[in-house]
């Protein structure tokens, strides 16, 4: 009797507390046809509501990892499940993935609002609903005034904001960001980091973020996954247990510095092994 009861209660607990993670990678590896090992077997789960950053040097396969999570590149081995389901389920309504790329990748021939609207147009969304969603997304990133501008008329930072608005317009359940601010100056980058952190909290987003900046990783993340190069693999996961909201004041705290030191030591040790 007791045993059965315990078993039942364990089952109930795991169902209630541990909803299926947003994305779960089991033994996922990527080898290119020419034999290059881009990513060695990786296990990683990103839970709903987390802000997970993949941190590593250039060429460690972090972008490849993100592309596999996005469904843009199939893993050579291993399995990826989104919300506990196979890839066919990703297109389901309300279970959306969105990605922000290294560059703004806006269509130069379309105005900002048409660019932001693209995912809705492709999904043949209702016109009025799409109009509202675009207006809201543009307001969210502070580009409301620039809806009718062409991308070339915007600064690099504003183009990136338009790109973020385009990702948010479908209200994605998992937002993937591949070094989105890498091409921007540090001041703009810090400001956008602040904005994205704010958006993540306000919209209860789930974010997988790729960067090579230790500071960016510490500032943004609930958890940092450190990767090392040749072949790309996960060497350590570091939780950043600091309260939100995080403002610029957080950047000059002792705990911020301590986290940065930890991460750079992990990175140094990992590259020492790899060399």
């Amino acid at each position, binding site marked *: 009797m007791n045993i059965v009861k315990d078993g039942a209660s364990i089952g109930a607990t795991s169902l209630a507390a541990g909803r299926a993670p947003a994305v779960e990678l089991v033994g996922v590896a990527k080898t290119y046809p020419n034999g290059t090992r881009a990513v060695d077997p990786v296990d990683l789960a990103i839970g709903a509501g987390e802000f997970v950053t993949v941190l590593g040097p250039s060429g460690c396969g972090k972008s490849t990892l993100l592309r596999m999570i996005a469904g*843009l590149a199939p893993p050579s081995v291993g399995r990826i499940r989104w919300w506990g389901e196979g890839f066919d389920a990703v297109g389901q309504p309300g279970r959306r993935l969105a990605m922000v790329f290294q560059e703004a990748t806006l269509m130069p021939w379309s105005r900002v609002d048409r660019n932001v609207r*693209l995912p809705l147009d492709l999904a043949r969304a209702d016109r009025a609903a799409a109009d509202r969603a675009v207006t809201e997304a543009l307001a969210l990133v502070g580009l409301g005034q620039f809806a009718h501008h062409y991308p070339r008329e915007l600064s690099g930072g504003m183009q990136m904001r338009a790109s973020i608005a385009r990702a948010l317009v479908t209200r994605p359940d998992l937002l993937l960001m591949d070094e989105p601010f890498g091409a921007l100056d540090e001041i703009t980058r810090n400001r956008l980091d602040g904005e994205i952190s704010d958006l993540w909290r306000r919209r209860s987003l789930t974010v997988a973020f790729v960067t090579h900046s230790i500071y960016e990783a510490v500032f943004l993340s609930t958890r940092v996954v450190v990767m090392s190069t040749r072949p790309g693999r996960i060497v350590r996961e570091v939780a950043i247990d600091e309260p939100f909201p995080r403002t610029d004041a957080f950047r000059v705290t002792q705990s911020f510095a301590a986290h940065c030191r930890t991460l750079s030591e992990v990175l140094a040790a990992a590259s020492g092994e790899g060399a």
Partner: protein
Amino acid sequence: MAANAVNPRFMRIAAPALVGIAMLLAWHALVTVFGVPKYLVPSPVDVAQTLVADWGLLSAALLVTLRITFFAFLCATVIGTLVAFAFVQSRLVEASFFPYAILLQVTPIVAIAPLIIIWVENIQVALVLCATIVAVFPIISNTTLGLRSVNRGLADLFRMNGATRLQTLVRLRIPSAAPYFFGGLRISSGLALIGAVVAEFVAGTGGHGAGLAYQILQAGFQLNIPRLFAALFLITVAGVLLYLAMVWLTRLALGHWHESELAGES
């Protein structure tokens, strides 16, 4: 006033015009001073007079040549675009047929024009066909390149959002290809005119449907050099106007976004 403070509009229009006027004056002066006879080198004034005097004949011939040019350009655009779309559907198709497209390009039209004129009964159709062969290649190669020159990030974005093949074609590939396509049009429009003139030369058709090339041939035989120059002048003007029309069309289509059309802005 400093030399670099010259108005850019003046630079674009007045400067080449001044060069042209200077050259015409020099030409006229040389011909007059050395007493060169009209049947060797006519002066610009002679050419202008002939242009007016023979306007009926020359303008009719110009219309014939322009009609052939227009239809050849139209055919080249339609065929070239369709071929490019076929090429980008599969690498196999492109690999199989592209060498033959090059063959079309490198074969001198003068060499195959006689054959085409023999095979195709209607001479006008034969001339259009010849000019089309000359003009089609830039459209094929440029449009193919353009349809393949899609930003990778945007292509990924379309895939992630479950875009259909048609959506990707209409919303991504065609806009991406547009600047290349219009570049092809510029080259092709000039080639269509050249093709039309060359084909007319080979055909040597006179009579009712005679084009400018025939007028040049005839004028040469008759040592009517002023008329030869006048016909030549009309061909040149037609070519320049065609080119300008393409520039205008490109600006109309791409002016609002493409870099090539935004050079003047900062």
